[in-house]
């Protein structure tokens, strides 16, 4: 995780476009200023960041399905359950499945497991919009390369 850049996914482990599923992994850093405040003497990964990790994994799935033509933005979080504490150094396995591909939006079901145990899950709504500018699209493809998301991008994208 690159918490300082709000880039929470380390690596895409599996992408199945036919089944509309994705798996990623992320390791919670052992040190971060976040843990100095959350909480002093008892560092915990904030639940909102776990939700964000599910949203980013879902987002990469949507980006892959539309082949970098459009950008997903988190719009709603439903049925979010944060089942247990996550602490620095833990390795997270994140999965997301596209439940519905709507017109201008997507619904995903996402989960995080740690050591095979379910940590949290939620249903997420993402608005899917045109990239606001070419630079953002370029940066997204660079990040995708870094985390191993291999999808053929449009030639003119």
């Amino acid at each position: 995780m690159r918490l300082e850049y709000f880039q929470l996914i380390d690596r895409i482990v599996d992408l199945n476009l036919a089944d509309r599923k994705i798996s990623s992994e992320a390791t919670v850093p052992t040190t971060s200023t976040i843990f100095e405040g959350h909480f002093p003497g008892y560092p915990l990964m904030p639940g909102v960041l776990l939700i964000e990790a599910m949203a980013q994994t879902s987002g990469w799935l949507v980006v892959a399905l539309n082949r970098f033509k459009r950008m997903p933005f988190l719009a709603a979080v439903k049925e979010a359950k944060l089942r247990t504490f996550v602490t620095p150094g833990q390795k997270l396995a994140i999965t997301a499945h596209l439940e519905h591909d709507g017109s201008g939006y997507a619904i995903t079901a996402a989960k995080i497991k740690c050591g095979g145990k379910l940590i949290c899950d939620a249903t997420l709504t993402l608005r899917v919009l045109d990239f606001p500018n070419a630079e953002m699209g370029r940066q997204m493809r660079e990040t995708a390369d870094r985390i191993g998301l291999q999808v053929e991008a449009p030639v003119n994208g």
Partner: protein
Amino acid sequence: MSSTFDTIANIIAETCDIPRDSITPDSHAINDLGIDSLDFLDIAFAIDKAFGIKLPLEQWTQEVNDGKATTEQYFVLKNLSARIDELVAAKGA
């Protein structure tokens, strides 16, 4: 079997916590019922699932923004019902 309008009205009532009896075929989803764009995504999702279609929200929004259509054509519920019936018929054709 309930009508398309009844199905939509029930979805709106449940999704947006609006009293069912205040929702009529002449209700405008935005102007009369106060449904915002995010809530409408929930409604669209429920409609897509209930009817097995994909409401072309982006196309409708573009047409309204371009002045080629009015919001009444798509968001007054009797008109929305008619659009849904057309989409269902097109799917089965």
